[in-house]
């Protein structure tokens, strides 16, 4: 009699659906997963240590490379931490523009998620639709700061420049452009019977499990926990705009997907309000000649498209931070993955991993 034993499969680091260079060591019994263990570090670039070797200003371009799908948010949390240490208040217009930028970035990031999640479950077309629409946002960013992926757009105490009127017009056009496209995407993917079968009740995460692992972002809200840093610890001008936090109930892949999808609608709402309330004025605060924050420490966090993105920074009064710790949402969310994947099928692992929405640049740092 041939005897059967568990089969070990290396999924990645080169695999189409591990979203970069994640390696997952799978133990499978037939198609069933008995254990899934993520193996990190293939994209480790030592960002935290580099932070201790560069001046505050010099490090800024590196923040773009943490989570390269939402570089705006990385910029934002980094400069916010420094501003907090310096005790600087940024001008009104700057804050509203920062909000517009980071919400547009959220839409762009979620569009990538929807597309790649579709790819993970085998639908090829939504991916291209999403990237077509994301392109419009990248064009806007390019007009604003000259870069399409690594912006270095937010500077300490302000922005790289003021938004020209044509840019504001472009954002308005985009706000009118996107909703029909989202509807189309909704009809193509969300309502697709096979898509629902593949994602509903798959990889269910209970709220308790999610909280105990420190999950955040849409990944957490898919399980029904209504926690969003924009509401819980508001920053910028978020208290002054009206928006909902999409929450789902079951905590399966479909719910996480739906949460992200609905967040795009909310972001559109926020951007529209920001445009209405955008004041005139300066975008750059007065800064000291050299950035030398007084000794002290801060933990600053924002709601990035993937969850709570935090920076813990200790200043010893020199030009270089003493310690720069990055709390990446993808890394924390990924830690739940072994719990979620166990007991599901090989095909589900791909769907569950997709619904965690990791970006390896930020997981490995």
């Amino acid at each position, binding site marked *: 009699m*041939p*005897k*059967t*034993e*568990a*089969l070990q*499969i290396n999924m990645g680091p080169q*695999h*189409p*659906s591990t979203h970069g260079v994640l390696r997952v060591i799978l133990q*499978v019994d*037939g*198609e069933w997963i008995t254990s899934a263990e993520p193996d990190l570090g293939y994209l480790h670039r030592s960002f935290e240590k580099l932070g201790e070797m560069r001046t505050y200003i010099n490090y800024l371009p590196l923040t773009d490379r943490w989570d390269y799908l939402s570089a705006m948010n990385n910029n934002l949390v980094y400069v916010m931490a420094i501003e907090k240490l310096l005790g600087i208040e940024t001008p009104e217009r700057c804050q509203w523009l920062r909000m517009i930028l980071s919400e547009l970035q959220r839409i762009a990031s979620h569009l990538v998620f929807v597309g790649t999640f*579709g*790819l*993970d*479950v*085998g*639908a*090829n*077309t939504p991916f*291209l*639709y999403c990237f*077509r629409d994301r392109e419009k946002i990248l064009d806007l960013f390019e007009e604003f700061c000259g870069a399409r992926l690594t912006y270095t757009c937010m500077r300490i105490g302000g922005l790289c420049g003021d938004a020209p009127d044509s840019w504001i017009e472009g954002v308005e056009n985009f706000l009118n452009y996107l909703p029909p496209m989202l509807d189309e995407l909704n009809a*193509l*993917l969300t309502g*697709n019977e*096979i*898509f629902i*079968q*593949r994602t509903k009740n798959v990889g269910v995460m209970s709220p308790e499990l999610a909280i105990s692992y420190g999950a955040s972002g849409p990944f957490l809200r898919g399980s029904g926990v209504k926690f969003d840093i924009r509401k819980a610890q508001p920053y910028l001008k978020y208290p002054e705009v009206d928006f909902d936090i999409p929450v789902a109930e079951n905590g399966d892949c479909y719910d996480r997907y739906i949460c992200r999808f609905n967040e795009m609608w909310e972001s559109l709402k926020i951007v529209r309000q920001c445009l209405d309330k955008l004041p005139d004025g300066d975008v750059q605060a007065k800064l000291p000649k050299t950035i030398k924050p007084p000794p002290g420490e801060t933990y600053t966090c924002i709601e990035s498209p993937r969850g709570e993105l935090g920076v813990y920074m200790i200043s010893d009064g020199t030009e270089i931070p003493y310690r720069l710790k990055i709390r990446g949402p993808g890394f924390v969310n990924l830690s739940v993955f072994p719990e979620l994947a166990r007991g599901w*099928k*090989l*095909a*589900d692992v*791909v769907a569950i991993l997709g619904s965690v929405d990791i970006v390896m640049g930020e997981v490995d740092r």
Partner: protein
Amino acid sequence: MTTATRPRVPRGIEYNLGFFVRLGLLLGVLGGIGAATLPAIPILGYGLLAHHDSITSYVAWLFGWCQHSELVSEGIYGCGQYGLPVPLFEPAVVMQRVLGLVGLGRPPKVTVDYVVAIIASLILLHFVVISVTLIIYILRKVIGYMQARLGPMRVGPKGILQTLIDAVKLLAKEDTIPGTADKVMFTLAPVVVFIPALLVYVVVPFGDSKGFIARDLNIGILYVVAMSSITVIGIILAGWASDNKYALFGAMRAAAQLVSYEVPGVLVVLGPVIMAGSLGMRDIILAQKGGVTEWFIWSPVPLVGFLVYLISSLAETNITPFDLPEAESELVSGYNVEYSGMKFGLFFLAEFANSFTVCFVAAALFLGGWYAPPVFKLAAGLTLALSVGLCWIELPFLLRWALAASALAVCLGMPDHGWGSLYWMMLKASGLQFLTMWIRATYPRVRVDQLMEFAWKGLIPISLVYLAAVGLWAAINQK
């Protein structure tokens, strides 16, 4: 210095019985081919025995696979009339020729048949290769447009030579065999997959004349089913011989999937067979002569049979909602992950050849083959005209609508007999092919358990009910 040998990767199932597995697979190949050809012998033989005056000539025929030319020239089987496949080295003929040389019998009169056979088989081979090349190009174009991009644009005008260049690239590539692979099986697998895909075309009716079907076997549809089920053996061979876990996974999935979906597919095919009272492809089409309402897509039970056949053939040819054996995002490429060069090319060719065969068979069984009653002509013409007129927006307005009008005119004027039947058959098959492309661009992939559930709990009961209904209908209406 001894070179370190790469340790064999432990597999899920410990194949210490490698030899037996290999033997089993070989037997499987032989058994599959046997299963495909054996039924042909008694069925054909039944008719033939009557015409053989001696048992020796029957045995000679049997080993010759096709009837030999003497009988052809007597016009008993009709093979020679429309010319096809008298194998070049048909043992019976060779033996007769040898006997004739030493003065022990009459030499056969074979020359013409050989030439015809060779020409016809060359035509078929070229049809398969060229149509597949075109289909791949069209697929990439169609899916490109559906996905808001252009598809191939660089090689030749509008990228029309892209597939040709790809084929050349595949041919020029180094043909690697992984170090730990089972070399014989690894090499054999693409062949086992490709040959049946090619052989199926022997009974595909391209049009309304005996000249348009290579050989109208009176077990036509059975032959199609038998031939296309050999593919799975090749896929398992490929997956097992690659010594790659992903490939093994793909192969296991393929085995489960292809075997499961064959059942509803075959059950449903029996519907038209019952209605036509024949297994021959030509006979089945001829039985649908009486207009659109007589087509077997409607005739006893509307749509059910056709849809079940379409779905299960999608699964059998690994097209998108059912492309689990080569799932890109899960298994990277599944059973053919280790293949490169023309070996991979053969898998690719076979897949598309199969998908086109399936379309031809569906058109023949359910859509009335080459018959195009006025209603259908109008519908097809309007569809074509509108799709050209409304979709081809990069053409100038006048040219676009002129093309549309001519498409309509061609459809209305094209007869459904003689050479015109070729047009209708191709149109129907291409329409179905387009449908598969559309599905490919729309649907995600199902999961393994959902796939099996769908076959065993959904399609098979439905097809059984369908079969019972058709049988009942036929019994009641029989005079």
